[in-house]
């Protein structure tokens, strides 16, 4: 099977579906703040970052953890990465909406990283992640790194969008 289906349709698949649905609802309910191309790009950035990190960390040789039911790359594994997209969007949305000042960025990233490991703890309880040589402290470091990059990426995009069109 190219992309294996779930061995058993249980809590991890339901959590992924639930989070994806919630993400879509949140995106629909929030007042539009950015051009749609920017919103989608932020979401693709978050999904791709998660995909690349998991690909490097969960592949054989390092093999720090498994995603979903087996060490293989599953169909629901793809949805797991798409699940990160609304989080990235919300992270940037709140950052922009409340115009988080530079002096508070560290605190903002810190709070989101705690939220991230909270969600990851829930994910590991629901068997989305099965840790082998990994723990939440490492994830916290990854979240700090990724969220810092998301802010840098967003600021870069804002500059690029402002050249012709002020939004």
């Amino acid at each position, binding site marked *: 099977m*190219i*992309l294996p289906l779930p061995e058993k349709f249980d809590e991890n698949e339901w959590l992924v579906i639930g989070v994806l649905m919630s993400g879509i609802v949140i995106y629909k309910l929030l007042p539009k703040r950015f051009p749609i*191309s920017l919103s989608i790009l932020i979401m693709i950035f978050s999904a791709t970052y998660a995909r690349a990190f998991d690909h490097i960390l969960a592949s054989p040789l390092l093999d720090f953890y498994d995603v979903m039911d087996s*060490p293989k790359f599953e169909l629901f594994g793809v949805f797991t*990465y798409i699940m990160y997209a609304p989080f990235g969007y919300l992270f940037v949305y709140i950052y922009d909406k409340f115009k988080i000042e530079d002096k508070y960025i560290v605190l903002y990233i810190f709070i989101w990283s705690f939220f991230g490991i909270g969600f990851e703890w829930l994910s590991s309880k629901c068997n989305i992640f099965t840790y082998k040589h990994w723990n939440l402290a490492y994830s916290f470091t990854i979240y700090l790194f990724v969220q810092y990059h998301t802010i840098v990426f967003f600021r870069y995009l804002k500059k690029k969008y402002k050249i012709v069109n002020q939004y």
Partner: protein
Amino acid sequence: MQTSIFIDLIILSSICFIFKKKRFHAVQYLYVYLIIVFLYCSFISVISDNLELWKVKEQIIPYIVFRVSEVILFPLVALWFIELFHLKSNKMYKITLISLFLLIPVLLQQWLVYMKVFEYRHWEVYKTILVWIIFYSTSVVTNYLVGKHLVKEGVINDSAPT
């Protein structure tokens, strides 16, 4: 020695691309890059982890070389392709370019195999060509659609190439 030359190539081609005068808006390149990274990483997972058609050497240096080529070098090839694809509208130019760019991933993979970074198991070169036809098509279509959308949003002018 071979692996360091390969990494040097990745760094130099990245620098060349970053400092080159660009034809399209930065957002178009970012879309193509991120989508290709996502697809290429997923493709490698399917090929090497699920189907075991490729075997990546389980040593740290080959592993790093392979991963860096996945997230930087091969997506960069796709970016170079869309950049050069629209350079001329001449049919002969486009055919030559496509042929050349179908050869590039094949040669790069052969180089990685030669360096024993990974090995093929039940994999033929024509499959690499087929896969890259999909990647290049995805890149061109993504670039085109994003360009059109950016014009609609007023981020780039009507006259800008899409």
